[in-house]
């Protein structure tokens, strides 16, 4: 598999007003890999995730410094088209947030606003493809015109993943994507993530240590806005380099 770097971050700093939320973050995220971000609440992992598609720009007083390259282009460059960036960097949130539309419309929405289809037939094909990729097609193929809210929580989350996939991003950010799901839905999402990495680069924030251990190829441990340790997940969960990482992941912390 291609081990080239998709996202390269050097000396990245971020502030919310006076609060220094990310301090000199250096990290390289390889293509077609799953990278998990772990750490206690307020450690900066979500801030970091939301910096990758500039979601933090929407927060007043947010300021970023340093370099964050997506395929050699600086995400924070003045002339970057943020809308285009977000098309390349999709996001899935903690709580499934389908639009108040039908299942099919939820998926085709991105195609329509980005004018990414050639006629109705092509649009339906793309909708189907995304739903297949998200592992939802078999469950909804006869209900495409029903409201998305009729789906279960786990199905809604897979719908949101399909919605992110339809506009063919390069990177998918997931902010605790299974935090509100039951164990079976969680297992389905985790399986899905493994399949998706063949096509996409995935960055996932999780509070669930075992989830990071199960799904991620690499794991970054954040604390107080810094990356304490970043490396191979199997090593991190058997013999982390730093004592503080060991204390945190084994729950001896604080």
């Amino acid at each position, binding site marked *: 598999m291609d081990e080239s770097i998709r996202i390269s971050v050097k000396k990245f700093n971020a502030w919310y007003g006076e609060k220094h939320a990310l301090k000199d973050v250096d990290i390289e995220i390889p293509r077609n890999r799953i990278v998990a971000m772990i750490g206690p609440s307020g450690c900066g992992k979500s801030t970091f995730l939301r910096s990758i598609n500039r979601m933090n720009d929407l927060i007043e007083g947010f300021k970023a410094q340093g370099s964050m390259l997506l395929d050699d282009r600086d995400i924070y460059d003045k002339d970057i088209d943020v809308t285009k960036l977000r098309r390349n960097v999709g996001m899935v949130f903690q709580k499934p947030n389908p639009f108040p539309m039908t299942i099919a419309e939820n998926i085709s929405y991105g195609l329509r606003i980005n004018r990414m289809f050639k006629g109705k037939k092509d649009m339906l094909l793309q909708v189907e493809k995304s739903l297949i990729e998200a592992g939802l097609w078999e469950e909804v193929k006869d209900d495409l015109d029903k409201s998305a809210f009729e789906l279960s929580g786990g199905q809604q989350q897979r719908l949101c993943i399909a919605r992110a996939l339809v506009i063919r991003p390069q990177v998918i950010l997931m902010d605790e994507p299974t935090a509100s799901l039951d164990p079976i839905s969680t297992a389905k999402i985790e399986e899905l993530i493994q399949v998706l990495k063949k096509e996409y680069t995935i960055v996932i924030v999780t509070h669930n240590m075992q989830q990071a251990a199960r799904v991620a190829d690499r794991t970054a441990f954040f604390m107080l806005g810094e990356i304490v340790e970043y490396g191979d997940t199997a090593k*991190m969960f058997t013999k982390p380099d730093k004592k503080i990482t060991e204390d945190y992941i084994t729950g001896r912390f604080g």
Partner: protein
Amino acid sequence: MERHFDDELNDMKRNILKMATMVDESIAKAIKALVERNPDIAAAVEADDEAIDMLEIEVDMQCLALLARRQPIAIDLRFITSVQKINNDLERIADLAANIAHRAGVLSKNPQLKPQIDIPKMAELVRAMLKDTIAALVEKNTELARTITARDKEVDEFYVHVFREILTYMMEDNGNIKTGIEHILIVKHLERMADHVTNIAEDIVYMVEGKTIRHKFEK
């Protein structure tokens, strides 16, 4: 932060220490049975072995339950998987002590080949290795654990030395062959015990440092 999990891990550790103490006593008793030519002590060692077997199963169950319930990672994972192996090695040492006791029982019914000098000395080496290994486990002292490998070589040399000596008795008089073989098997059992103790010491280094030193793998 205090974790209830730590109580469970400590409970398991106490069982391992208890088992190590029982195993050490078994070795001591087996050698006593041999030196004193006492079949009653020999029979007691064989009975003790059953209690050690039961404890082995208990520790095994504790490990499995903790793996299933806690999904341990990092030091917790290394500790539990190491305990599983240490548990198994201790049980094997106890089996070897029982084998020695059994042979001591057989020898007590036969004329004495020679006064027992070397075998008790060798057994003391093995017991000292076991004691230090268990101390290394309690103190997480990998420096001490690393000394065990070198001491295993001493035991190996002892084995070769005693083997040759017994061989001379057998060559002198083929009436000595039966008891001679029993002696050789006893020193072989002691030599194997030292190997198991060495395994335990290596597991302790892995548990504490995450480094593999088995099979001359130390980097």
